[in-house]
């Protein structure tokens, strides 16, 4: 067993879990934060993306023990109370989702993309979201959402 201590969405957590526990299982099953999704078993879909010390990471491809000591942010941690994060608001306003399965990962991936890169072109946004697969939207409205959020976020 591994004693995993970390900060998740600003709160310190501490649990003893089997060493082979994936970070995504720790988040969904131990912490019961089910906004982070699992969409594949090949590390390709990005539905599980969270931030680990400010970097976007596929939580299905990291052990909880590897993330011990880190600051984790999940989709539940980005809104300010009832006020949506600009990226969430932009997805809402631009119809950037249909079934919503990919959305938490898209939003987390897009936030890091916009925070780290200024003046993103449409092409750069598409390339920046290569790790996130959406089976519904055809991506156009997702790209529009990220463009709108980038404006709002000063990108």
């Amino acid at each position, binding site marked *: 067993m591994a004693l995993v201590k970390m900060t998740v969405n600003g709160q310190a957590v501490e649990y003893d879990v089997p060493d082979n526990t994936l970070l995504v299982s720790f988040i969904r099953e131990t912490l019961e934060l089910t906004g982070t999704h699992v969409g594949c078993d090949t590390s390709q879909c990005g539905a599980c993306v969270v931030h680990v010390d400010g970097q976007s990471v596929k939580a299905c491809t990291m052990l909880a023990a*590897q993330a011990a000591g880190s600051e984790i942010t999940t989709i539940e941690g980005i809104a300010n109370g009832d006020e949506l994060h600009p990226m969430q608001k932009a997805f809402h306003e631009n119809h950037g989702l249909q079934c919503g399965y990919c959305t938490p990962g898209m939003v987390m991936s897009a936030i890091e993309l916009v925070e780290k890169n200024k003046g993103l072109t449409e092409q750069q946004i598409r390339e920046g979201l290569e790790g996130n697969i959406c089976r519904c939207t055809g991506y156009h409205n997702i790209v529009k959402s990220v463009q709108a959020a980038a404006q709002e976020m000063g990108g």
Partner: protein
Amino acid sequence: MYATTYAKAKDVADAVSQLKGADEGKLLAGGQTLIPTLKQRLASSDCLIDLSDAGLSGISDEGGSIRIGAMTRHVEVETSEMVKKAIPALAALASGIGDRQVRNCGTIGGSVANNDPSACYPSALLALGATVHTDRRDIAAGDYFTGMFETALDEDEVITAVSFPKPEAASYVKFPNPASRYAMVGVFVAKTSSGVAVAVTGAGQDGVFRHGGLEAALNSSFSAESIDSVAVDDSVLMSDMHASADYRAHLITQMTKRAVAAC
């Protein structure tokens, strides 16, 4: 995933001794290959030894070469001003690996140890004449890659760094598999003081290889047109659901032309 234990190695010597002490110990670097295979039970291990605190990360300029620590992540190579200045083709190669999340975690040591036949880095090592440094020796790239997923590493050997001699010019062009982003064919062309080297990944039945015919043509005239006369033998190339050997042979010619044009 089968049950396993997890421990951090505090340095390279500790990693080697933990490997020796385990039945089926495995080093854990960025986890971007190892964790998916463990999850699917394609691999198992009784002991995962995490290298993240073993002091193997960082990029340095050694004069004639750039040395990249084994735990250096793809994103660090992609954004390194030192690499962009000395070997821009290497930074560009790193920027095209997988996706941002894979590049935030995956390391050069993990990629080189794994020697996936479709991985990008092996072509750069071979074309640039890199050296693989381990806990016990230095291995020339030409002696290091020994077959598909096969390398010259001993069971309990740890890669510590890779050194890349600075070329006069170099370029890497890949035709990515549209789903996985791995190379369906990737060609690394390097111009060095000892001539032109052309390394091909994603295509060979035995993994990455240098193409003598393309090198000879480019050594006599370094131009995209000089490749037109070169026949690429498809009998040594892979055929799978992604591409036939014949199509891969065509891609090798085309990617080489693009790489030469970009040099």
